[in-house]
């Protein structure tokens, strides 16, 4: 078999006539080519179409599924912001009230402490005199006034 294959390979030396090869080449290459008719659907059309269709499907899918979530989350954030602002205002008001109550309680306790520990000595004498001068002696119930005064002093 090897001998046969070797002999068959020798047939490769068969070659076309050089003149024929040259003239045929010239004739082929100078012939007008069949220009493909203008096709509405080009060879790459279906690939492009498939890619475009897939893109459209993805976009539609995302717009239907993803966008509402995003919008919902955006509106959630806005409502949360509003809630937080109201809450902060409430906290602020409450803090002011606490501070105010604290101040007044402190003042009250200081006043009570001074009143209980110092007695009438802390009262400015000039102020007492002024009050005495403006005192309406014609009060219908001077005894009541005296009682209140004594209560304040003692």
């Amino acid at each position, binding site marked *: *078999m090897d001998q*046969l*294959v070797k*002999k*068959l*390979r*020798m*047939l*490769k*030396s*068969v*070659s*076309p*006539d050089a003149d*024929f*090869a040259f003239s*045929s*080449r010239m*004739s*082929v*290459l100078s*012939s007008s*080519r*069949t*220009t*493909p008719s203008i096709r509405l659907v080009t*060879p790459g059309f279906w690939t492009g179409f498939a890619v475009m269709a897939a893109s459209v499907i993805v976009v539609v899918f995302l717009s239907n599924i993803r966008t509402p979530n995003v919008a919902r989350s955006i509106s959630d954030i806005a409502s949360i912001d509003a809630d937080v602002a109201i809450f902060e205002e409430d906290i602020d008001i409450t803090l002011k009230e606490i501070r105010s109550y604290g101040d007044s309680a402190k003042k009250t306790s200081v006043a009570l402490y001074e009143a209980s520990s110092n007695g009438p000595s802390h009262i400015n004498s000039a102020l007492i005199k002024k009050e005495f001068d403006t005192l309406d002696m014609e009060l219908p119930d001077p005894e009541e006034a005296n009682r209140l005064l004594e209560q304040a002093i003692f």
Partner: protein
Amino acid sequence: MLEDERNLITEAKGGEAEAFGRLYDYYLPMIYRFILLKVGHREEAEDLTHQVFLKAWQNMSGYSEKGFPFSSWLYRIAKNSIIDHYRRAKPSTNIDDLVNIEELISRPDIGKIDEKEELAKIMKSIGKLKETEKDVIIMRFVEDLSVKEVSDALNKSEGAVKVIQHRAIKKLQELLQKDN
């Protein structure tokens, strides 16, 4: 495969005559031998070879590789051209009238008369094979194509090509023994 073949094919598809010219130069001997060994007549082989390349050039824009080498495409055109040729007219030559071996064998180192006679016998024996067997013998052993390339060109499975090859070689050996 021709170096830079893909670029040449792309250029040829775009209408570059020079690119197709290089493909022509490379594949002409191969296609010519294939046709000559099939039809057994030099002038018919030349006419058919010319037609093959003319069709290839004119339909170059329709060629798409799709995993098949360019040579397979040319072989397919050649096979179809030979079939059309046989349909149109009965071959004018008998295979026994075939070969003026002096004319065909151009290689200078084949000078001995007994070698030329031996080649003439082989060519005649090939002519007696079935068409598919001829195709496989020429492509596999004369052109040294791989089984894959032959299967692509003949549109057959690789297994089928191997079976045909085995049968063809056996038949060829028997024909040569008879001739001797």
